[in-house]
């Protein structure tokens, strides 16, 4: 086991040494401060929305209104993740709609199945 790890480490070291000698010349651009700031803002929004969800979870009584708020807040979070983190908002329109339109089927599936569930009680 110890020998195996030793061999592995020495291989990794060789790789490290190797790419110093035949390293291609690359120009590293400076960090895009504005873009990075925006990403942290999105992370802040996601955290804040989750915090709001927590507050609602313990202050509101269970019912359709509470569920509706949770669903809306979840869609807000999903929008930020897909739009900003996954960059879909900035992709070409064809790709944007090719992803968004099929998800409408999920909503259909959700409504149809949950309705069906309410019609067939187990007990």
């Amino acid at each position: 086991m110890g020998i195996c790890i030793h061999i592995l480490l020495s291989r990794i070291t060789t790789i490290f040494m190797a790419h110093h000698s035949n390293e291609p010349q690359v120009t590293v651009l400076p960090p895009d401060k504005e873009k990075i700031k925006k990403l942290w803002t999105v992370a802040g929004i996601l955290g804040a929305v989750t915090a709001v969800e927590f507050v609602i979870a313990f202050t509101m009584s269970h019912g359709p209104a509470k569920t509706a708020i949770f669903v809306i807040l979840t869609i807000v979070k999903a929008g930020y993740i897909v739009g900003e983190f996954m960059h879909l908002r900035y992709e070409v329109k064809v790709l944007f709609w090719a992803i968004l339109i099929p998800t409408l089927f999920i909503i259909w599936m959700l409504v149809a199945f949950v309705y069906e569930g309410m019609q067939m009680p187990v007990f």
Partner: protein
Amino acid sequence: MGASYGKLMMWFFLLSDAFTFSGLLITYGLVRASHPIFEGLPADFIFSTEYWPIPEKVFEAVPFLHGYSLPLVFVGIMTFILIMSSVTMVLAVEAGHRMDRKAVEKWMLWTLVGGIAFLSCQAWEWTHFIVGTDTATMKDVFNLKTGIWDQVKVTGANLHVNQYGPQPFADFFFFITGFHGFHVFSGVMFNFLIYYNTVTGVYERRGHYEMVEKVGLYWHFVDLVWVFVFTFFYLV
């Protein structure tokens, strides 16, 4: 379409994966809607197979704080970990655009830490769910030998028994969080591959870091699914 082949295919894979997860979560909704809900006040709630449990009463344990009722705190920590690792991933993508190998390495390493931390949390949560609480729940179990219903004490849950409520509740817990957890696991594997290739200079020689972007899409999707699991399994 103006997007590269690899990214396009990743998007279509993720769309199909979204349908798989929707199938699981919507079936959960169907089965839950067909079970009676607990009618009393949340404070009076006790575990019973007669009605669907209130999730915050099931998930209220936190490591090292045995005996305290801390509803949804641990799952909140898990959510925070996954959101943070999504941020570090997108920062790795940003660094890749600038050909900044050192920064990609740094942020990929943080993403890996986040993924492993999440999986560790899940391992603890599963263990707690399987082992169960201090007080057992009484359950009617059909005895095949005698042909009568026996009253049995049940602690914890698996695919045969469930102390927290009706059997499907435990089944869905294992299948939904398990399927998501497996996605996180494969995500960690992919992230490690990306990290390794970055360290060895594969992408630098290739001239672009598009692989970071593609695996990044997958990793954000895992975070996205968790947002839905968090709402529909733990909050509602």
